[in-house]
């Protein structure tokens, strides 16, 4: 029998709101709604703090509705850059506990701590507690931890004791724990699947065991094996650390605070994502000549355009004009846009060789952005900005 694994799922509590509070403690003690100011009539709540949640405010609720529920609350648009910054710092803390980390999104990650329990005398709860307190004391934000022998159980468990809690499932408790939970707690079960399952009398995870595999194959489609495995507490997926796969492309995108067709504003946002993507390429010492610009419109349709640039680079100046030209092909006056992004494909290692361009005096610009990289690394991404992106 294989050794029992210990998988942690760490989920940051009201992450955006917590970051805002950590940066600006004056915001504490009142409901905080990140997503838009009180005047953003078309805004959507992106993250409420726990006081706001108590008032019934939820993610994706219109700002106007949130304002009715908590008129005394603080309403802010959100500060660009601090979330990924905090996310990075959280990850650095994780690395003190295990090298096996799989970041799932900006505010959650899986950690495999099976091999690193010795300092905690083999007690995984002790480790989780130390980690949670470490995050709280170092950064002033809280997280919740789910512990079990596999990813899916841990993920479901981390939601149980929120905020600032730990849920530890012993290997033989896992199934009982799961069976009593509503089936929509399984990651991947959305509205449509739920409706389907309800139709057959499946409301709790335990109910899934009333049917066999062929039923799920026929009725539910792609979820067939997965759902039954979850119900049986089986999930053998490994932790995929970042370093495990060879990165061939790199992308950066941003969902806007509000939908817009303001071209000037959108071009600033585009510069912002381009700058971040190039900064990441420089950090990893990659170069690319393959640029894609992506937009998501208000109706959630996505369109993108790609272009091969004549030479490889990792400096935003070399891509900016092209990104504008590509964006121009995606932009229609009157068509609202909610997200802009860029992707660099065909990444190569930068060996320092560079084809000179007679019309581009790149040296100055390159040393400028490299110095900006250093300043940002030491302090914070937002301490230094180009005039272009100053007001977004």
């Amino acid at each position, binding site marked *: 029998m294989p050794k029992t694994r210990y998988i942690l799922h760490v989920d940051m509590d009201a992450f955006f709101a917590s970051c805002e509070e950590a940066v600006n403690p004056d915001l504490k003690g009142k409901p905080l709604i990140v997503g838009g100011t009180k005047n953003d009539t078309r805004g959507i709540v992106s993250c409420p703090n726990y006081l706001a949640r108590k008032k019934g405010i939820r993610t994706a609720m219109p700002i106007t509705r949130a304002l009715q529920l908590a008129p005394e609350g603080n309403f802010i648009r959100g500060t660009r850059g601090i979330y990924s910054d905090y996310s990075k710092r959280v990850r650095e803390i994780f690395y003190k506990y295990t090298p096996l980390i799989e970041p799932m999104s900006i505010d959650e990650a899986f950690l495999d701590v099976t091999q690193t329990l010795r300092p905690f005398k083999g007690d995984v709860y002790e480790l989780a507690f130390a980690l949670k307190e470490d995050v709280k004391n170092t950064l002033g934000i809280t997280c919740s931890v789910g512990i079990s022998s596999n990813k899916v159980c841990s993920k479901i468990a981390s939601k149980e004791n929120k905020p600032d809690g730990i849920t530890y499932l012993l290997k033989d408790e896992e199934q009982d724990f799961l069976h009593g939970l509503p089936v929509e707690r399984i990651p991947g079960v959305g509205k449509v699947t739920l409706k389907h399952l309800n139709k057959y009398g499946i409301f709790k995870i335990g109910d899934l065991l009333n049917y066999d595999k062929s039923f799920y194959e026929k009725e539910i489609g792609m979820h067939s094996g997965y759902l039954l495995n979850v119900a049986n507490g089986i999930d053998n997926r490994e932790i995929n650390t970042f370093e495990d796969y060879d990165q061939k492309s790199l992308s950066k995108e941003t969902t806007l605070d509000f939908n817009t067709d303001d071209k000037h504003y959108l071009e600033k946002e585009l510069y912002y994502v381009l700058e971040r993507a190039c900064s990441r390429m420089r950090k990893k010492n990659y170069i690319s000549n393959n640029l894609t610009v992506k937009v998501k419109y208000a109706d959630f349709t996505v369109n993108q355009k790609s272009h091969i640039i004549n030479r490889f680079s990792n400096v935003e100046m070399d891509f900016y004009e092209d990104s504008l030209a590509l964006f121009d092909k995606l932009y229609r006056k009157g068509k609202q846009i909610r997200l802009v992004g860029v992707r660099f494909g065909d990444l*190569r290692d930068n060996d*320092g*060789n560079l084809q*000179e361009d*007679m019309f581009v005096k790149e040296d100055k610009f390159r040393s400028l952005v490299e110095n900006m990289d250093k300043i940002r690394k030491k302090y914070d991404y937002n301490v230094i900005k180009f005039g272009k992106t100053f007001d977004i």
Partner: protein
Amino acid sequence: MKFSISAEKFFNAVNKLSYVVPGSSHTTLPILSNIYFKLDSNKLRMVSTDLEAFITTDLNVEGTEDGGVAVPARKLLELLKAMIIKNESVSVTEKYSSDSYGLLNAEGLVPELNLYSIKYDNAKGTLVYRGSIPEETFEGLKEEFRLFKENKGTIAAEDLKTALDDLEKAVTALGKSAVDTFKKTTEKLKIKFESNDKNKITVNSKNGKYQFFGEPLDDYPLPQDKTELSRIEISGNRFKRFIQKVKHSVKNDEIRRNMAGVFIDLRKNELRFVATDGFRLSKIITSEFSHTNSKDENFILPIKTVDLIPKIVTDSSLVMEFDNMMIKFTIDNFNVYSKLIDDTFPNYESVIPKDNDKKLLVNRYDLLSALRRASIFTDKVTMKVKFEVIGGELTIKSDNPEIGGEGEETINCDFKTNSGDEISDAFSIAFNVSYLVECLSQIDTDEVIFTFSAPAKASILLPVASMNEENFMELIMPVRVG
């Protein structure tokens, strides 16, 4: 509409017009896959377009009934081709040595002639021409060959010279035999063309009768003739040659178009053709042209038109009339109308260095051959080859750390300052090998001059002597070695 015309003349016109006809999958306007035909007594007006460019011509025909129809271009062209060209490949009877062919091919000399699809048939030991080419093109080939010989001057290597002489003999025979075949089949062949009011087209020849449907002319877009255009006149051959000299430097960029064409820069007594992609720049200047305005004018000719005009150009003169939006070319009885690129060409003069103080003189063939070998071992990102010059020797190095290969060879050279003093210090600089090869291929002289200032600064390539009132230079940006 009813008219008759000689097959050769008709084919020639339809063939040229079809250069701009878009493929049916490439156009949203189906009428454009047709050629516009309109007959007014003995004058047949023909027009084709892809909306970017228009080609028009007026043919003298024996007209019997006026009218008009839009004729499916590909169908008509294929039919005419099949009617007049009996034999699509012609072999030279005279045996040709495969060694000579191989030698010329290795030196890159055959491709320069190869515009006309001349291949070597290993089995028969003969040269073979493939394709359908009307008579005048073969005349063009002979002219091309003469120019080619003239420009190259004498070839140093004895066996190379023999090979070239051989090739000339063979090509002449080849041309003669193809022209004979072509003449025999087309001279006497008459085509009768008619269309009725239902746009049904009938093509009659001695082979038989072919019927197909055209479209009404109503929606066919026509070019607008403008007045008050500036006018330049230049020889057709010179235009073709100039385009050939600079075209490789055009930036192939669909989304930013300011360098996606040849910049034609008209100065007082100077006509300049310039192309650049930021990494290299080609510039050729002549004073042999005439123009109506004495003021400075310029425009960017889009690469598609740059490719199109040489196919239509003949030996006779070429007239360009333009404003800031469009250009009209007049070439014999053909007119080509094209949009111009509505953007600003970069200030190219400011990037051409005037203070390059080191001068490298080297044999162009030796260098080209060495570069072709070196290019096999360059990395794929910068494709860099490194020049190391010391004393009278130029060492060319390439390496590809990714796959682990390298090459190095040394050729003789002459390295001096501008004032003629020997440079004893070593100098090194790196370039993208494909840019170098393309630039060197456009230099006409046996030897080439490079000028340098520093390893990260622009280098200039020049022929040792220029011909026919022209002045050619190429600039190439180095690869900075990290």
